[in-house]
């Protein structure tokens, strides 16, 4: 692209380094020599996308081979997007400043529903035809993956192929297969047919949804006979077998997470019934402590980062956590690197660790009880008791913590006002504990409440979300009860949560809503300052979409779900059973203490299932 023109743009925008590339450890290659050029698209700002470890993992793996050149592209901020449109500069990759439309394949990672409009905006800025069905042979193949691909239908009109599951193996294989096909002169359609039966590959154009008179999905009619009835997700059986990056890209500008990161394990055995990640990333697959330590050391060496963090769904569930934490603490101390351990379960060992690593600067201590009463916590299978919290808080106060953060969800199935009272009670009790400790001084409890969004592939996938009116009533109810000294109350916007809920369980018709929202100018909807409910309301009207149908409607037990086409390898019967147990307030144990029958072991080895039996 024209360097002078780029300069002219960069001189005018905020944080121009979002668009320059050239950071430490980026892949520098001769694009001519790659058989396939791939743009990794993150549909949000650079600072968000560069904090996402999945990007670093896949970037590293793809660029290991000379056959593939993986470059990055992010959503431009509104000031840059406006200038690009005005000056007719198409969206480009950071590495080589190549126009996106000249890439072979453009892939988007789907981390959260509210970034979907960003995909349309990026395609439009790139001058790539939005609708997959109208895209030409000379345009890139547009693919997508990530957790939101487990309900791909709202994006089906715009995406040629979804890749479901762990990407480390299936993404490079898919790209090479595409290179082979194009070199042999196959058309895109011919290629898609050849790839349709591969594990993890969902080609939406090979299926046509049919609807019942009441608007629910009747069935998926196959338009290509070799397409599978259900698409199985890709699973890496042992994550020790796949490479993990040590040469992380180090951004120039500050990002959300600016640190060395090692993934300790994938998956979670806790079985919280609202949690999609807990279902779709099964089974738990751990890295060895030696591997983790080695990766951490190499990352710190190659990046110069001053902070190290561990990545997993639940840090202290790592089977050899004490050994690992002790080793890393020593290592970090020696190297003047600070260690950050998110989502610790606060037992006595974790406390010692936390006290050691936060010796001088104690950040807030965070608990996520998610619900205000034991009854409701049993319903959602969140295995944390009030006594767990209080004993941890008592210790924390003794050790000098002065800031406690509590996370709750409202609108959970079977919730009553009593459960909301429970939230206020917990906050009040914690303040009381501080009073009783006799250690005056500043003390603060922050209660953050988010709105429950039922997700696909969870035991709560059939549940209704609260109406906007109900959410607001509950916010008011809580605000009144949390007007206490030393307590801060935060809550999420209900409009955003409802919008998220539409796409979380939406069907293919929601693509129309997305398109209208894009035309209304909706962008960066995950950002409070950019989300505009009025635009979304107009878009729903134009698209003829009744959002209540997707949000506050309880699904029938035998209803065909739009995401049934995706097989995440957890049995539907397991989800149904878990849902029944939720209604009878019955908990399910962590499956490290004995298999709970989710069915994942039909597909792959479940190495940690039942280890404490």
């Amino acid at each position: 692209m024209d360097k002078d023109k780029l300069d002219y743009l960069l001189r005018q925008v905020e944080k121009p380094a979002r668009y320059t590339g050239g950071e430490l450890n980026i892949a520098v290659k001769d694009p001519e020599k790659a058989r396939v050029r791939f743009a990794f698209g993150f549909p949000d700002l650079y600072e968000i996308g560069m904090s996402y470890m999945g990007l670093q993992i896949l970037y590293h793996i793809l660029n290991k081979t000379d056959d593939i050149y993986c470059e990055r592209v992010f959503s431009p901020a509104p000031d840059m997007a406006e200038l690009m449109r005005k000056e007719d500069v198409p969206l480009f990759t950071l590495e080589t400043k190549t126009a996106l439309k000249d890439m072979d394949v453009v892939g988007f990672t789907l981390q959260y529903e509210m970034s979907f409009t960003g995909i349309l905006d990026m395609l439009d800025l790139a001058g790539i035809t939005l609708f997959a069905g109208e895209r030409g042979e000379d345009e890139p193949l547009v693919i997508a993956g990530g957790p939101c691909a487990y309900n791909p239908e709202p994006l089906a009109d715009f995406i040629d192929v979804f890749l479901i599951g762990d990407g480390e193996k299936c993404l490079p294989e898919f790209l090479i297969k595409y290179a082979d096909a194009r070199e042999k002169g196959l058309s895109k359609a011919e290629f898609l047919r050849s790839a349709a039966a591969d594990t993890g590959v969902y080609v939406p154009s090979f299926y046509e949804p049919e609807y019942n008179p009441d608007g629910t999905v009747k069935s998926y009619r196959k338009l290509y006979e070799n397409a599978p009835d259900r698409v199985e997700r890709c699973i890496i059986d042992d994550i020790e077998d796949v490479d993990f990056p040590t040469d992380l890209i180090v951004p120039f500008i500050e990002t959300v997470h600016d640190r060395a990161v090692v993934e300790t394990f994938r998956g979670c055995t806790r079985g919280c019934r609202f949690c999609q990640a807990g279902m779709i990333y099964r089974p738990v697959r751990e890295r060895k402590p030696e591997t983790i330590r080695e990766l951490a050391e190499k990352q710190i060496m190659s990046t110069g980062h001053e902070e190290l963090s561990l990545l997993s769904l639940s840090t202290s569930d790592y089977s050899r956590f004490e050994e690992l934490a002790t080793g890393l603490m020593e290592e970090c101390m020696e190297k003047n690197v600070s260690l950050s351990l998110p989502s610790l379960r606060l037992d006595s060992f974790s406390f010692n660790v936390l006290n050691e690593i936060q010796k001088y600067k104690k950040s807030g201590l965070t608990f996520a009880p998610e619900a205000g009463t034991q009854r409701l916590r049993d319903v959602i299978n969140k295995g944390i008791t009030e006594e767990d919290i209080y004993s941890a808080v008592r210790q924390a106060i003794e050790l000098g913590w002065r800031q406690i953060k509590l996370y709750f969800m409202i609108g959970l199935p079977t919730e009553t006002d009593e459960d909301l009272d429970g939230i206020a009670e917990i906050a009040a009790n914690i303040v009381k504990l501080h009073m009783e400790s006799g250690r005056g001084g500043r003390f603060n409890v922050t209660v953050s409440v988010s709105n429950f969004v039922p997700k696909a592939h969870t035991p709560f996938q059939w549940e209704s979300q609260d109406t906007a009116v109900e959410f607001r009533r509950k916010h008011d109810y809580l605000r009144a009860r949390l007007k206490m000294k030393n307590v801060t109350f935060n809550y999420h916007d209900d409009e955003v949560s409802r919008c998220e809920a539409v796409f979380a369980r939406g069907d293919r018709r929601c693509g129309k809503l997305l398109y209208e929202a894009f035309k209304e100018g909706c962008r960066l909807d995950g950002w409070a300052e950019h989300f505009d409910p009025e635009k979304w309301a107009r878009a729903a009207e134009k698209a003829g979409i009744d959002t209540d149908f997707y949000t506050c409607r309880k699904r029938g037990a035998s209803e065909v779900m739009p995401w049934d086409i995706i097989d995440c390898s957890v049995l539907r019967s397991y989800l149904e059973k878990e849902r029944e147990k939720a209604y009878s307030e019955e908990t399910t144990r962590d499956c490290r203490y004995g298999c709970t029958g989710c069915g994942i072991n039909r597909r792959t080895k479940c190495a940690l299932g039942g280890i404490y039996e």
Partner: protein
Amino acid sequence: MNRYAMEFSKTGMIRYTSHLDMLRLFKRTLRKIGVPLAYSQGFNPHPKLGFAQPLSLGYEAKSDYIEFETVSPVDTSELLTKAAAAMPEGIKVIRCVPVLDNVKSLAAMVISAEYTITVPGTLYGGRNPEEFTSDFIAQDEIVVEKRRKKDKKLVETDIKDKIEILKPAGDNLLYLKAHCGSASNLSPDLVIDALIKFSGSDVRKYDFGVSRDSLIFSGEWEDDF
């Protein structure tokens, strides 16, 4: 005390990396190559390093300096080799020298700077560049609007005395020498504003480019042992 100064240039795309981000970059790079940086004391220790003079976002620098302290003496030629290999594209390290113990910080010694300003050809409005610049300099006062730091208000200020030399330096290039540093400072941005105002043409600020070619210090600081 082990004080060192490293001279470097900053060209190409990396000029869109801000002052604070450049500080982080140098901090990380020096850590990465094993330089034993000295840290400040206290609850929030930070390494002792700083640039001689901040550089505006988007400007190139032909010769810029970063000063730092280490807990033990370092081999400067080895440091330079390692730093050269570790720096991202656009940062070239030129030399690394010990700083005399008994001098002020480099930042306190900067008094002026030399710049090359790339101007759009239409700035001169068909006039001879020599004539244009000498007429510009010959004005009784050169008043521009400047945003005051304390209350963010736009105030008028006369920058004439802070411009030491301004003259053409080739096709569409101007040479500027101006006050720089903590005592008296003139941002080339203001000179560009004044040039646009003086020319009366419709050139845009974004059509200009600035390179800071050298920093001039008030005294000797290099330890040449």
